[in-house]
């Protein structure tokens, strides 16, 4: 490989590597957001299912 080609490959590896890593962080953040939405749905479901004394009257 020629010196200039190696230079371009090295810089491409650095920036593509970092961008891929940032993309992976974003994907994991989306997963956590989904997890939090699931928990919120569970809480709402539980709250709707609870029969309080006020509703019995």
């Amino acid at each position, binding site marked *: *490989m020629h*010196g*200039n080609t*190696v*230079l371009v*490959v*090295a*810089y491409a*590896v*650095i920036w593509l*590597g*970092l961008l891929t*890593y*940032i993309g992976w*962080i974003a994907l*994991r*953040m989306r997963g*956590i957001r989904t*997890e*939090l939405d*699931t*928990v919120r749905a*569970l*809480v709402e479901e*539980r709250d709707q299912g609870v029969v309080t004394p006020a509703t019995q009257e």
Partner: protein
Amino acid sequence: MQVAKESPGTPTSPPLDQSLPRWLRPAWRTVAAVWRPARPYAFAAWRPVQRYGEYVLAAATVVTVLAAVWMAFKYAPTDALQGDVQRIEYFHVALAWIAFLAFFVVFLASVAYLWRRDERWDWIARAAAEVGTVFTTLVLITGSLWGHIIWGTWWAWDARLTTTLILWFIYVGYLLLRSYTGRSESGARAAAVLGIIGFVDVPIDYLSVTWWRTLHPSYQVPLGQTAQAPASVVSTLLVAVLAFTLLFTFLMLLVYRMQRAQSVAQRLRARVELE
């Protein structure tokens, strides 16, 4: 138990600003407030920092990275012996420095976690180990590419290269351990011990070029001595180090927040499912 009360007339040691001339007192109070603030972390809780800090950090990172790339390709001179391929060094060296910094953060946060048992230190250690491993991977790849042209080989079992590879294995092991043990306290404790022991390799890696005869170049800017390289080369390297320090801080912040959100989500889910 009686507490001795200070009477108004009791001569106590007067504050330093009282003994200064009246016109010097405001300046002294400002210096004293900066030197020994009442709440050292008040800056982080300041509303504008909370609201805009992340954007300012991201913008500063992008500007500094662009400046570093411009300096590496346009400002710094072409090396007489190595040619353009030497320009890899600006980012390779900066990445290596930040990898060492990341593992120093892992070490400090691990010690703090074992001492205080506060899970926030564990999140910091985990975030620093993850970002540090990414940076070390890039150091190994860029070093290998540079070595292919300059040494004529992709890899040599040289002291610097070998200790860096060992460092990479240690922190990959650290991340695997975190992955297998989950978010348990025993897992965090074991990882903290590994984070402390693993850091031993960092000074060995740093000093390997002076301890052993190696293929790897030694420092261009020895600490405490005058730089042997031209000023344009040193300033480019310093800007690249600054750029990667900002990038490291930004990534650490992202990963730390992710760790916190993940812990909160898992804890909430467990509580909801139990009730």
